[in-house]
């Protein structure tokens, strides 16, 4: 199974979302996560020891659907039903319908606070192994509730939380200066090429971090 197979699977998806470029801006980072980083068990999606992944922005889930299908979370045939009556695959992912989806998302600014709660829950249960990775968009970080999570996670010392920012320069207000901005709140900030699997893999290696890590995956402007 390679990322090219995932691209092929994405073509099976039906509905307008098939062409949503916001899926492809996330594809490399998602592939690296599911192929090299996250510990999951597709045969037991709610395995207690799993790593948790939240697609906070919710938009463009086709890349995630294709990867989950490729990894065996659900049958590939589901992709051919997406967005149609009776399907489990909508244009925003639903945890009640899709194995492997941890949180139902789509309204921007919700995923990071929920991920903070998940990371706290893991810590309260004494589970040191699993981690929480939450994907947000650069424009999603316009939302004030995102910054509630940005403030909270370092304050709470959540080294088991990683925020992946897909920075495709889609925000109408300037969102750069990530190292200064997120760093000043206490995040460990890592800037990488959003298409470079080696850089992404290295950035996701957080070891025994004492503070949350922010991986800023740069996608060239104009490319979604």
């Amino acid at each position, binding site marked *: 199974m390679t990322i090219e197979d995932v691209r092929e699977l994405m073509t099976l998806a039906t509905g307008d979302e098939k062409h949503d470029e916001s899926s492809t801006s996330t594809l490399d980072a998602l592939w690296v996560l599911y192929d090299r980083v996250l510990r999951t068990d597709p045969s037991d999606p709610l395995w207690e020891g799993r790593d948790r992944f939240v697609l906070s922005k919710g938009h463009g889930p086709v890349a995630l659907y294709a990867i989950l299908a490729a990894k065996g979370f659900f049958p590939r045939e589901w992709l051919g039903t997406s967005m149609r009556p009776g399907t489990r695959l909508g244009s925003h992912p639903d945890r009640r319908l899709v194995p492997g989806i941890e949180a139902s998302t789509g309204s921007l600014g919700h995923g*990071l*606070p*929920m991920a903070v*709660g998940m990371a706290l*829950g893991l810590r*309260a249960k004494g589970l040191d192994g699993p981690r929480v990775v939450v994907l947000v968009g650069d424009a999603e970080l316009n939302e004030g509730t995102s910054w509630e*999570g940005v403030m*909270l996670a370092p304050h709470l010392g959540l080294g088991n939380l990683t925020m992946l920012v897909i920075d495709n320069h889609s925000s109408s207000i300037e969102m750069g200066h990530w190292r200064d901005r997120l760093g000043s709140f206490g995040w460990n900030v890592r800037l990488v090429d959003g298409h470079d699997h080696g850089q992404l893999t290295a950035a996701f290696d957080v070891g025994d971090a004492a503070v949350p890590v922010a991986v800023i995956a740069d996608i060239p402007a104009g490319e979604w």
Partner: protein
Amino acid sequence: MRRQAAATVVDLFRDDARVAVVLAEISVPYFAEAFRHDPQRAVNVGIMEPAMVGVAAGFAMEGFHPVASTMASFMAERAYEQLKLDIGYQGLGGTFIATGGAYDYSTEGATHQAPADIALIGGIPGFQVLVPGHPREVDSLVRATYANGAPTYIRLSAQHNADAHPVGVGAAEVLRRGPAATVVAVGPMLDRTLAATDGLDVSVVYTASVEPFDAEVVAATVGDDPVVITVEPCYEGTLARHVAAALTHVPHRHLSIGVPRRFWRSYGEPLDLDAGLGLDAPGIRDRVLAALG
């Protein structure tokens, strides 16, 4: 009620390692024992009500029974979308305790008053909306619901009735029987409703559960020419859909006595606002008598 709610939650927190407490600065001293007992499960997120609910959702996703609390205005209004999406839509349970119902913060204006809360939360499918009328009812309702898998909004009030009643989710109790009308009192409105209807030939039904609502008891209490009067500690008309649903089989009249749907700019104690808004016993009696003709 506020102290009782915290005491009950702290008690559950000690006994049940699945309980998590998430606060947004408000009421932290009331829950101090929880923070001492296990700071891993008790979190003060600061003044961030949306994040408070989001964090509670994350705890619930990890198998905990989260309890969050703040003022009704900041819970039901500021964090409404989080209650709807992070809790309701995800299918999670949790206890959301709101203080300062209606205009308990009587000198603070609309910023700290939320008479719409019961209708708002009632608009989120699956949410239980409970309005206890006595501290002991708070205790029994929190214990009955905190781990039942459903999201629960518990609306506390500064005023309470003299006696506690055996309340439950979706339950109402007939306290008096009379043919002229069925008067339904919600939570802290009971004692003044009993006073207002003293000597009148009406039934009085009491409930601390708005969602779900005990339609069966109301339907069974009304006479052949039903007149239903609801006395509500929230915007008037909040219970109208429940009355309509209970009586689809029979023509009926319904009068809602509740908080008027306007911003008022008067201060004083809650009792002063009760009198000014016609929600004290004399004001309620006048409207009941007018409805009875």
